[in-house]
């Protein structure tokens, strides 16, 4: 059967590395899946884990979070702080049973246009296989309000 599921993927990227890298992907005419909606931040350090939660709640099937390689941060250490946050966030989400294959973290520098395309394409392919996200369905809430 043909797989017609087109996942909605949100990418939270930093301005200096990955956003520039994604730009390079375009100027290098490398094609990649059109499922990604990019949100630009000054730095990965700015990316609040709540934005990841909200994106999942609002219907994203996958998330890519990407920034500068360690030591390359435009702001010295924003990505190191971000990395700590991701480590805890990822493991906490897994502890609560969430399928973290849907959330990709990566370092893509301004020179890695091809890597960006690759990450997007792999993510889209993997999430297409996983199918739509297991949303924490309020309808499934089997108590009082399940009746609507």
């Amino acid at each position: 059967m043909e797989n017609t599921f087109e996942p909605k993927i949100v990418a939270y990227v930093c301005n200096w590395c990955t956003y520039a890298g994604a730009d390079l992907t375009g100027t290098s005419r490398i094609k990649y899946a059109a499922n990604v909606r990019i949100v630009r931040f000054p730095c990965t350090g700015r990316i609040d884990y709540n934005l990841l939660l909200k994106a999942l709640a609002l219907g994203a099937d996958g998330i890519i979070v990407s920034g500068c390689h360690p030591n390359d941060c435009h702001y010295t250490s924003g990505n190191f702080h971000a990395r700590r946050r991701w480590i805890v966030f990822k493991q906490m989400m897994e502890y609560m049973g969430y399928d973290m294959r849907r959330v990709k973290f990566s370092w893509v520098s301004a020179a890695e246009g091809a890597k960006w395309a690759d990450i997007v394409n792999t993510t889209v392919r993997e999430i297409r296989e996983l199918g739509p996200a297991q949303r924490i369905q309020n309808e499934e809430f089997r108590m009082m309000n399940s009746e609507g």
Partner: protein
Amino acid sequence: MKSITHDNLLKLLAGLADEGKIVYAPVRKGQKVFFAPVQNMQPVVFDYIQTTESPKLVLFPRYEPLISFEYQGKEVKVDDPSAAAPAERVLFGSRPCDAMALKRLAEFFDRDIPDALIAGRQKALTVISMSCIKADADCFCTSTGSSPGDICGSDILLTPVENNGYAAEILTGKGASIADRCSSLFSEIPEIRKEQYLAKVEKAFSHEEVRKKLSHAFDHDIWNGASLRCIGCGACAFVCPMCSCFDIQEEGTAKKGSRVRCWDSCGFSLFTLHTSGHNPRHNQSERWRQRVMHKFSYQPEAAELTGCVGCGRCSRACPSDMNLKEQLQDIAANVETV
């Protein structure tokens, strides 16, 4: 007088669920007992003194949409959920105090400007209560106008008697319609004195007396002492069958969503905070006083509606052992009568 055996009671409930009614019954979740909709009666429990969460959620759910909306260009389309007829619900296993609380809660929402959502649910609700044969130290229903076998608010009141059976009092038309439809499950027994089976709950104070004393106790020292250990969580209000404070919030995306009513508590510091930064009830002692005064003085003064039925849930739920019964006894004993 009618009676029903345990097995037949389960059959009765299962039958109601099969009819398409939503049957709420006490079920165990972890260590605690909650009311939840049940399809089959297997998980229903009977050996509890009081459920953790009160059955107020059948009238006044934890959250419910008040309206839903969708932007269509510059226009907005609003849908009113009260237009749909509420589902028929049966509440089983509420205690007499709970049944009274539901009745008072419905009255509260109905006064002055009636709340159609709550009234609609009240109309479609049948309450099958269970008298208390056990009570604990936190129970004080007899001090607030209820009692372990009180009939107020119930459509059918069951009292456990010998031989795994229940004496059934059919109290209202709604109760009678169920009893009539399932008459084969009931049997006739001679009148019994149900008091002999009921738990004994000593009267701890008189709510009339407390009400009188509270009317001039606003500035009394008693509030400062008692509220010191209150940490300002909302546990008491959220388990209370009569606490009716709520918040209105928006849910959804930028284009479509709903306006939702959710439970709230007067014990939260931000409950009364003005945008200007002014907070009429700035300290926890003021908020604790508000909770007690509201239930035992303000509401009785304004609407002859005592805001407490003595179920004792708040005392059981409180993480820092604020004991409402003790506080009221304290008021009855230590606040001077003018």
